[in-house]
């Protein structure tokens, strides 16, 4: 995979795909915010994509998702004996999702997606103008 030729469309296109995966993980984190589990292991932990640079030739690089990891943040333990999922000590665990942080992540993702779209638009315009050269 090392030092392949990357066109501008590869660079921005793959970056957009990576940002979309990031948006997907954010969506599933937000969807699972507030879910309750009867055990600490069963509680939802927020998912985080790990980005990795893919080097191309002549100083170009694009990005790919290396893996998706579960956040190490621990679920919140809450004493709630009346909850149907409560264990024998009367505890339940709430999903380890920071909704505010996820919203910020979502905004950042969408901005970075937009930046890549903008790059593609400009590059495409310039390429079309180059094709029209001499006409």
């Amino acid at each position: 995979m090392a030092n392949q030729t990357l066109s501008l469309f590869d660079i921005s296109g793959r970056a957009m795909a990576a940002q979309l995966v990031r948006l997907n993980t954010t969506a599933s984190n937000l969807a699972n915010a507030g879910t309750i589990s009867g055990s600490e292991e069963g509680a939802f932990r927020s998912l985080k994509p790990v980005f990795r640079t893919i080097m191309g030739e002549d100083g170009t690089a694009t990005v790919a998702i290396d893996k998706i990891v579960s956040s190490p943040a621990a679920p919140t333990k809450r004493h709630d004996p009346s909850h149907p999922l409560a264990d024998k000590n009367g505890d339940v665990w709430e999903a380890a999702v920071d909704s505010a942080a996820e919203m910020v992540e979502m905004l950042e993702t969408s901005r970075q997606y937009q930046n890549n779209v903008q790059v593609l638009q400009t590059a495409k315009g310039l390429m079309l103008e180059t094709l029209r050269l001499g006409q």
Partner: protein
Amino acid sequence: MSVGQSLFGIHATALQLRSQRMSMLASNIANAATPNYKARDMNFAQALRQASDGESIESSIEYRVPLQPSLDGNTVEMSTEQTAFAENALAYRSSLSFLQGRIGTMMRALKGE
């Protein structure tokens, strides 16, 4: 001096380098969220000199020095990259219009209008 260079001057080379620099800046923008990514840019004046002398431009690719270092080791600063991208696109467009003018002149000379 090649035929292309005598006809189109520095702009044929410049256009090629501008498009190469555009890919580099696009790479920086693409990696805005990748930890430890080091942004790169082309020293354009040096690259143009080397390319017109037929040398490799590899030594003119430099790492960007960030204005403010970030915790995750990423040195992409979106404002810097976006301004550089816009500037580069504008310079590409000006090279294009110089070429357009040159082609127009030559067409008129060929047709004897």
